[in-house]
């Protein structure tokens, strides 16, 4: 009996010694690791699935020239981008939609900074010679900037839509039996691919995916009555017709631009950022990142824009963006 007790006590002492040693080692050993972690600035970008492919191209290029900054990207929808930027969880919220007036009133320190100009396709799963089947409309379930720009187009072009449903990152889609909801642009591509006779609105940065899936692309009727597809020429025409109206806070819709060649669904891709950052170092890191993104030699360079089908910011707009970026501290 005495032997068993003393051996048990010995066992307990050895175990606790190992445990304490382990804790001490864990605290002391990665001395270099903690120093690295302290030097590294971590930034989180979350939001628009339309901007996500471009941000994923930007991050490796930016990190190679700025090794002290680690950027994580997420595709969660513009609605989440806006709310996480407001709450401070994300340092950069990506959104295809600018913040509404009530949202700006409630959060006065927020900035909407355009980083590039994108557009949107309307894709359909083609049947042969328009067969006699019900069309299945597919919409976004998450709070989506794509929903925002698509419903703005519908609202600006169709007065009855404007009166009943209007526009927003979330709308009460009319009840069409069989209508599907999908999450994110990739979800829209997948749902459209697997659903015959479907029609969906998908961001231009997913053109490779829609082409691979064999989806058709619809020509949309613009303000002048012409039917146009989203090409660099038609998007540039729309930019020329509307960008000059951009105010200082850069919250403006570019939808349904006038002009015979203008594509009706184009928008600024916004970085929603809080002008009051929690630390000076973080503010500097965010400013440097955003300045890099809108620089026509870096983020707005042709090879990045062409890879996702976007258009670079005109110089006047880039100037306005730079002024807003300077307000981040």
């Amino acid at each position, binding site marked *: 009996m005495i032997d068993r007790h003393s051996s048990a006590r010995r066992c307990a002492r050895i175990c606790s010694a190992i445990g304490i040693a382990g804790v001490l080692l864990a605290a002391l050993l990665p001395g270099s690791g903690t120093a690295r972690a302290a030097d590294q600035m971590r930034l989180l970008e979350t939001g628009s699935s339309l901007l996500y492919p471009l941000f994923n191209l930007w991050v490796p290029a930016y990190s190679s020239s700025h090794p002290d900054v680690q950027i994580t990207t997420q595709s969660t929808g513009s609605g989440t981008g806006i709310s996480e930027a407001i709450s401070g969880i994300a340092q950069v919220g990506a959104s295809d939609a600018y913040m509404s007036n009530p949202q700006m009133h409630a959060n006065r320190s927020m900035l909407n900074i355009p980083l590039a100009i994108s557009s949107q396709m309307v894709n359909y799963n083609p049947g042969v010679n328009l067969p006699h089947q019900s069309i299945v409309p597919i919409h976004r379930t998450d*709070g989506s900037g794509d929903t925002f720009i698509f419903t703005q187009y519908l609202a600006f072009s169709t007065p009855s839509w404007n009166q009943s449903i209007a526009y927003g990152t979330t709308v*009460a*889609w009319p009840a069409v039996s069989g209508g*599907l*909801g999908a999450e994110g642009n990739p979800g829209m591509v997948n749902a459209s691919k697997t*659903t015959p006779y479907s029609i969906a609105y998908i961001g231009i940065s997913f053109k490779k995916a829609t082409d691979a899936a064999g989806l058709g692309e619809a020509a949309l009727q613009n303000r002048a009555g012409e039917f146009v597809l989203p090409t660099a020429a038609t998007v540039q025409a729309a930019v020329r017709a509307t960008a000059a109206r951009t105010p200082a806070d850069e919250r403006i819709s570019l939808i349904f631009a006038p002009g015979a060649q203008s594509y009706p669904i184009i928008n600024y891709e916004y970085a929603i950022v809080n002008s009051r950052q929690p630390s000076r170092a973080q503010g500097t890191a965010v400013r440097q990142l955003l300045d890099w993104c809108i620089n026509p030699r870096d983020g707005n360079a042709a090879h990045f824009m062409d890879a996702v089908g976007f258009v670079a910011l005109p110089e006047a707009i880039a100037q306005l963006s730079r002024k807003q970026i300077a307000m981040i501290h």
Partner: protein
Amino acid sequence: MKFRAWLAILAGFLPASLVAVVAFLTAYSWPAIRFNGVNFIWHDVWNLGNLYADPVHVGGMPIQPGAHYGILFLIVGTLLTTAIALVLALPVGVGAAIFLAEATSGKLRIWLSSFVELLAAIPSVVFGLWGYVVLIPLLGRHVYPAMAKVLAVIPFFSGPPGSGYGLLTAGIVLSIMIVPLIAATLRDALVAQPKSLREAAMGMGATRFEAIWNVVLPGTYRVLIGATFLALGRALGETMAVLMVSGNALNYLPHNIYTPVSTMAAFVVSQLDSALQDPTGMAVRSLAEIALILCIISVIINGTARAMLWFWARSPQPGGA
């Protein structure tokens, strides 16, 4: 005495937390309850209003213009998916339980029972992913078009076969998740039935199947009902798996069994980030109201099931009937 008092306090945390959750939900969704009224349950339109216009004041509360919340399509979706899941799971569960209790014994029974119970241990999101990747293409491309043609005489089974996302798919995935609940509980009850019952039935000339079906199984009806209620409770609250395969219908009721639907739990998940866009906060509070209704329904069903199982397990069973 002191030990018992501490034990009572610790044990009291559990019912206290249940009360706290319901109280929190009620308090948080109170403005939505006032704004939506009873029409919340009867109306079919979930509309956040014009998020980009200025808020208006209704009944002293700021609301986005045009906002109106009604969840009839969610209630119908939840009830229908649960009903389909039960209809599919009951025969399979009862059959599995009878097989495990009567046709296997010893080590084989232990191993097979473990497999059935392990099915319950699989996280629901895994079922959802499997449904999304495997089940939806299979059902949408092959099974549903065939079903729609063959079963066209039955009204709810005819019409456009859809794309695989829908009511029946969600029901199938849910039924796979609740089968182990029914099978495991019923198997225990069958095994607990006295051997003398079976022997007496066979002594009267009954075949093995007749002995099980007419004598042994009726004795477990109460346990079966209790297990069904438990399975019902699980199916009602199931979120992730349903979210991935149900098609996320908005504002319309299903017109046939292949149509997309939405359930209350999945809706709260998929609409939360959209609701956060509402600067007045009424949308999030309405989601909390949905959660409150779901919570109350689940608590009632689960509570009834456990009370039934407990009560009838204790009361002496009259032999066989």
